[in-house]
């Protein structure tokens, strides 16, 4: 760790903990786990949580299509949780992203929520509420690229790309080519301008 003050060199404290290749391998492994636990991917819905969870869900859907032959578009959706957050009153108003549900809906399906980082668990709590308003899934599972610990709610992930022990003072940033130009996961000081996902 560098001792350089963050305001003069904001990225100097960043440490790459997952490379592009490692991210891809982790997603491939998760895809296989999902196939195993859903008996070949039947009745499966992947709901990405905006914004980077949506990109990860799309990648998983492509991998699942390759494995199972089920078209990605039939299983892929997104679930915006903005309006279900418990901190609306305190943080600046966010513009909600669209919620898209695959044609077959979520009732009685196996829904896998996909997010980039699992931290306090509050986003997933909001996602479960949001999902509840969309219908009644048979099973709900959670897939995350990174689990960094420090849970504040009784929530755990079923599929984890990598467990990353972190300090609360650090933040974990997932960068994906769709939104950030390249794939990598960084750990940085909290003093950075951008915070991690919850």
């Amino acid at each position, binding site marked *: 760790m560098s001792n350089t003050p963050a305001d003069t060199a904001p990225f100097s404290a960043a440490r790459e903990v997952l490379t592009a290749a490692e991210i891809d391998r982790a997603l491939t492994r998760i895809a296989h786990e999902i196939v195993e636990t859903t008996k070949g991917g039947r009745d499966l819905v992947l709901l990405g949580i905006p914004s980077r969870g949506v990109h990860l869900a799309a990648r998983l859907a492509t991998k699942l299509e390759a494995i199972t032959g089920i078209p990605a578009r039939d299983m892929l959706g997104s679930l915006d949780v903005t309006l279900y957050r418990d901190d*609306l009153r305190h943080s*600046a108003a*966010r513009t909600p992203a669209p919620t898209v549900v695959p044609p077959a809906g979520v009732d009685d399906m196996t829904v896998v929520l996909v997010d980039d980082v699992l931290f306090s668990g509050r986003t997933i709590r909001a996602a479960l509420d949001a999902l509840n308003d969309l219908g009644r899934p048979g099973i709900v599972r959670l897939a995350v690229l990174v689990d960094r610990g420090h849970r504040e709610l009784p929530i755990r992930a079923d599929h984890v790309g990598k467990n990353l022990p972190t300090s609360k003072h650090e933040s974990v940033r997932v960068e994906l080519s769709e939104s950030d130009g390249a794939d990598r996961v960084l750990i940085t000081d909290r003093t950075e301008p951008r915070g991690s996902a919850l």
Partner: protein
Amino acid sequence: MRHLLDTVHLSREDAIRILDVAETMSDVSGREVKKLPALRGRTVVNLFFEDSTRTRISFEAAAKRLSADVINFSAKGSSVSKGESLKDTAQTLQAIGADAVVIRHPASGAAQRLARTDWIDAAIVNAGDGTHAHPTQALLDALTLRRELAARAGVEPTGRGLDGARVVIVGDVLHSRVARSDVWLMHTLGARVTLVAPPTLLPVGIETWPCDVEYDLDNALATGPDAVMMLRVQAERMHGAFFPSVAEYSRRWGLNEARLGLLTPEAIIMHPGPMNRGLEISAAAADSPRSRVLAQVANGVAVRMAVLYLVLSGAPSTEGA
């Protein structure tokens, strides 16, 4: 955004943001569970000094779909003449714990007064003040038109303005808060607006408005507008010598069947309601497939959800539009 008072002071960025959030809210209205927890525990007061069932139930539906507690305060007749002042009413609502006040008032500027004084801390949403402004109506008009333009171009409406659109607004501009709000909002969003009215129903001083003015409806329709909005005209206006007779008004400024034929195939018809069939709009026009009157009503709920969400969530900022 702390308050929504008019559209003159609404930036393009904020306007598009409201419309984008409204698109999301619109999706919710199509779901089986038409409810979001976003405003749980917040209190929205509908403070109506004028009868307007349509606007009130639209705001009420919007607030309830966001899980807010809604208090309807029909204050008609209790303010100016019958004792309690607007200030006392506002302070009462403050004491009740209102987080947002949706105010409809016959006096122009009433919403500004609530927002600019220390009578109440709540977020103020103008639901129509006198002949001044009706910003949520203008936003729902813009949402309706934007969706139309996006569908025509085969693109998503989100993030876009109304750039290049041509809108004709016809009727009693002088007494219309809707026209005032539409002109500024649509101009901000990049549309070109033409107001059409008898000269008696156009305000002195209109020359600085960001729009064109035309007395002849047929000339305006000949320019091929994307949307024609008919404003409600009150028959009583003829007693103020604003026009000689209902028949003459209807002949010259009404959207009748012959004028319907002048419209381009894609042009839509809008009306803020309630309509005076046979006066400013013929039954044929009101019921034609071009009419978006019911879409406007549905979009009204989505827009009002968006506005309530944006004024009530987030850390209090210093000043909004």
